């Protein structure tokens, strides 16, 4: 009886250990990896009354920079310890309509400088106290997927069985323009990759790699360090 009991305990512990190990492996697999590159051209500084605007590039025929990514970066910068004043993209684009639409937005600093020659635009920039433009170009995409999950439902109940995984990659490049000097202050590039898993034994359990959120955090942290850090 004791033997049987011990054996049962051992097998239960073994199974639990196996499940724990499997989850640990999956969780490790869910981790995202991020590479951040920074290229600084000029030193930066920002006064408390000055503002930043974070904008997404959407001129390619391919995928656009996601609005939620731009909002995430803007929110992270404004809620950081430095409390940067970030003008929301939609508010800025509406206030400056029609100069920052897909077909009219300046593609380089020289064109921005030309825009500032327009007194109406210059007055609006002055009113909004804009110091830096951050243009973000890129997107998150699923690059590979494997496996499948089958679910069945019947009078006695239902369940799923299978395993699915996919790889996400997020590549974003931010170009920081200094409006005061009409120059490019620098560029930041982030590359984030991660694999998500959904094992399903009766119930599917999604173990998701938060690739876009990680890319947003990496980009925001680096932008903050770039703009506030200074040199």
């Amino acid at each position: 009886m004791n033997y049987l009991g011990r054996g049962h305990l051992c097998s239960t512990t073994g199974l639990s250990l196996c499940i724990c190990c499997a989850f640990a492996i999956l969780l490790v697999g869910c981790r995202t990896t991020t590479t951040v590159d920074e290229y600084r051209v000029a030193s930066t500084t920002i006064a408390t009354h000055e503002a930043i605007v974070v904008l997404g590039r959407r001129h390619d025929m391919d995928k656009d920079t996601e609005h939620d990514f731009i909002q995430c970066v803007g929110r992270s910068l404004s809620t950081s310890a430095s409390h940067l004043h970030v003008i929301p993209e939609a508010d800025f684009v509406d206030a400056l309509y029609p100069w920052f639409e897909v077909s009219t937005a300046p593609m380089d600093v020289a064109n921005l400088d030309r825009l500032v020659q327009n007194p109406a635009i210059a007055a609006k920039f002055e009113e909004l106290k804009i110091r830096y433009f951050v243009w973000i170009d890129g997107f998150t995409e699923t690059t590979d997927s494997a496996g499948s999950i089958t679910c069945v439902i019947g009078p006695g109940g239902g369940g799923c069985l299978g395993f699915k995984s996919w790889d996400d990659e997020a590549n974003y490049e931010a170009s920081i323009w200094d409006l005061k000097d009409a120059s490019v202050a620098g560029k930041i590039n982030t590359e984030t990759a991660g694999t998500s898993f959904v094992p399903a034994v009766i119930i599917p359990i999604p173990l998701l790699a938060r690739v876009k959120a990680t890319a947003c955090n990496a980009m925001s942290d680096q932008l903050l360090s770039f703009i506030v850090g200074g040199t």
Partner: protein
Amino acid sequence: MSLRTAIVILYKTNIVVLAALVAGCSQSLTLQVDSAVPAALMQTLPLTVAVYYDDALRNHSFTEDSKERKNWAISTGPSQVAMFDQVLASTFTNVLPITQLPNANAPTAADLVVVPTIQEMQFGTPEETFFDFYEAWIRYDISMLDPHGAPLDNWEIVTYGKANQKRFSSRSSGLNDAIALALRDAGAKLSTGIHKQPVVRRLLNEQR
């Protein structure tokens, strides 16, 4: 409740659910475009412009009944008029809406008459293009007439709007977003390009 009644209720409920699912998957589309174009940040041009919208523009509706686009009806008229009103009002010093085209006997007290018309409208959906976005193209013809209604020039504007496909959102919502962006593009091209038109340049030179 008897077993028979319960079975009948269950049967009817299933039919309703099935009908709702079929309706959700149906190809038909009825859309009243909802968009807002902001005022243009411009140095207003010192001209008085009369604007005339014909019934085709005021009541513009894109309709198609094909195998792929069964009973499509997309109404854009009110959004078109609102966009032109907003953009022209912020581009020129004075804008006079007119309900009849001027003629030699009944000229208008404006420097220029602007008559926008829609020549063509096209759409692309993810189901058709296999891209992750909805697309809309609109081709306008902007006729410019003198105060007596004589044609002076025509200007063609082609505008484009692209809206990412959102998870759990409908086709109507995606197309509405794409059309709204095409209307914004129309307003942007109109307000930033009209002063470059030879007729407008000539009138501005005469003002100086």
